[in-house]
């Protein structure tokens, strides 16, 4: 089921959370809403779910206007950052909740719950209470609960934000695989660009209450619409007044036609990657090199090298 957001504006008092936002989410896609906190991405997700009401604009889900539809009738699956586990119910009861509300017959509901618990690898925890689960397990339970009711769209609000780094890694891959199995239109909010790049088919960058750019991860990384998108999706530095990715700068030992002179300030070895801090025409910049490239140069503090832009990634306004 597709989601179409048209001209949505939402204010909280004087604060404009969303300013005339329009986005199209194609059916069956896995899309990330990426942006800094306070940028409006969670508000947009909550408006799509029906947990918030827009001041103006419309939300169309699967071709029909859902703007006035109350949350409980939208048939969306929603996963909260802090799990929102029903503490007084077992894992089984949590997952069965939506089915009970929909008055599914007991045996059919039971089969469905067990199917979902298997999908999220929690079948042996069915009779446990949320307090007896780890954070990652709770979030998987929340996912099963949201998926049990066969929602038209699955919405996840910073689903891995409360988990520690390793579990977060695991769950990302797992979400990707899950989506490939289930194919439900999925929209997740994150402020972690790595997460968005790794998991999503498509990314919408939202900041300052507006959509900055929508596109596949590669497109956003390689052809960012503006400096903000460029700097939000990966590391940046400046060379000759332009914003450049630090791995897109070449260092050479001898001057050439399009090089500028640079002074090495500091060399930091981060395993495979070498990071070189430079001073170029009185301006600080830095470059990412591989170890082999670095070894071909004499990079001692105070040495003079020549820098040149290697590749093409620049912000192309209006792209």
């Amino acid at each position, binding site marked *: 089921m597709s989601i179409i957001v048209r001209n949505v504006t939402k204010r909280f008092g004087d604060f404009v959370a969303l300013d005339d936002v329009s986005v199209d989410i194609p059916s069956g896609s896995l899309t990330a809403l990426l942006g800094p906190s306070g940028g409006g991405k969670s508000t947009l997700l909550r408006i799509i779910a029906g947990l*918030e009401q827009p001041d103006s604009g419309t939300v169309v889900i699967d071709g029909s206007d859902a703007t006035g539809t109350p949350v409980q009738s939208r048939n969306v699956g929603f996963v909260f950052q802090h799990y929102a586990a029903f503490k007084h119910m077992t894992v089984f009861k949590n997952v069965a909740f939506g089915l009970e509300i929909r008055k599914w017959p007991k045996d059919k509901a039971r089969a469905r719950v067990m199917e979902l618990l298997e999908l999220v690898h929690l079948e042996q925890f069915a009779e446990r209470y949320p307090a007896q689960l780890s954070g990652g397990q709770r979030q998987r339970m929340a996912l099963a609960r949201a998926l049990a009711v066969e929602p038209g769209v699955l919405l996840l609000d910073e689903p891995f934000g409360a988990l520690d780094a390793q579990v977060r890694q695991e769950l990302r891959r797992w979400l990707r695989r899950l989506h490939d199995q289930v194919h439900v239109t999925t929209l997740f909010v994150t402020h972690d660009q790595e997460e968005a790049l790794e998991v999503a088919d498509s990314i919408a960058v939202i900041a300052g209450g507006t959509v900055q750019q929508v596109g596949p991860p590669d497109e956003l990384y390689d052809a960012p619409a503006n400096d903000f998108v460029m700097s939000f999706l990966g590391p940046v530095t400046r060379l000759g007044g332009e914003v450049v990715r630090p791995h897109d700068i070449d260092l050479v030992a001898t001057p050439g036609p399009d090089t500028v002179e640079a002074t090495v300030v500091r060399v930091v070895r981060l395993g495979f990657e070498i990071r070189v801090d430079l001073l170029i025409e009185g301006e600080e910049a830095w470059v990412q090199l591989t170890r082999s490239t670095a070894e071909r140069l004499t990079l001692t503090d105070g040495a003079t090298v020549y820098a040149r832009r290697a590749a093409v990634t620049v912000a192309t306004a209006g792209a």
Partner: protein
Amino acid sequence: MAVGLPLLDDPAGAVKPGRVRNRGAAARRGGLSLVTTYLSLVVLLPLAAVVYRSQSQGWGHFIHAIQAPESWAAVKLTLVLAVAVALINLVMGTLIAWVLVRDTFPGRAVLDTVIDLPFALPTIVAGLVLLSLYGNNSALGVNLAYARSGVLMALLFVTLPFVVRTVQPVLLELDRDMEDAAASLGAGALTTFRRIILPNLVPAMLGGTALAFARSISEFGSTVLISGNIPFKTEVASVAIYNQIQSDDTTNAAAVSTLLLAVALVVLLVVDLAQRLAARRG
């Protein structure tokens, strides 16, 4: 009010979407009318009636009523006792809270539980209980019956939990690292207590003390048996009001009541304000 719950300015979920908002609004309107009607019928209207009655014969009569010798003596005694009770509670309540949080000894859990007993124990029973130990045939040979000290005792009994229960949670939450930091900077135990711990406890101490004060000026049941209600000697304000009601002198009773209400509210509001200021500073 001092014990009011801190409310968020915009609780999440306050806005319900779509049609639910309308249905939610209907439910809210229903709930709100239930709550306000109930509160009005039981609390607000009756209290307004007291204030109204106290003024029904004019301000001059109001002043005259509270300055009537017997009433005035009762009010004065009540205020003096309440101040004493507040001060003793301030010290003893903080001390007990300290012992409950920072000390370990067998029976601490029992002590922690019995502190709440005065909240649960009927006040008339509290009076009787005190009278059995400190009355005419006292086992300790201390007769406080029909004496002001007996009334003081009763008030201390019923107000025991207030300061303890407001200071205790704050003390429990207090970051022990702060004390270690102070010690590492060369502060002795007393300096650490005075300069580090005490400033953090003061708002809670004040809050608890204000509640104890408010309770003291309004206390009735526990003082009835032990005080003997001797006018000009052991009669406290609420007993004076009670006697006036019994002799159908409701206008004068309302006058003294209004004075008591005003004092309690002013004290609670001032302390609430002080706590807010302290919270802002902290």
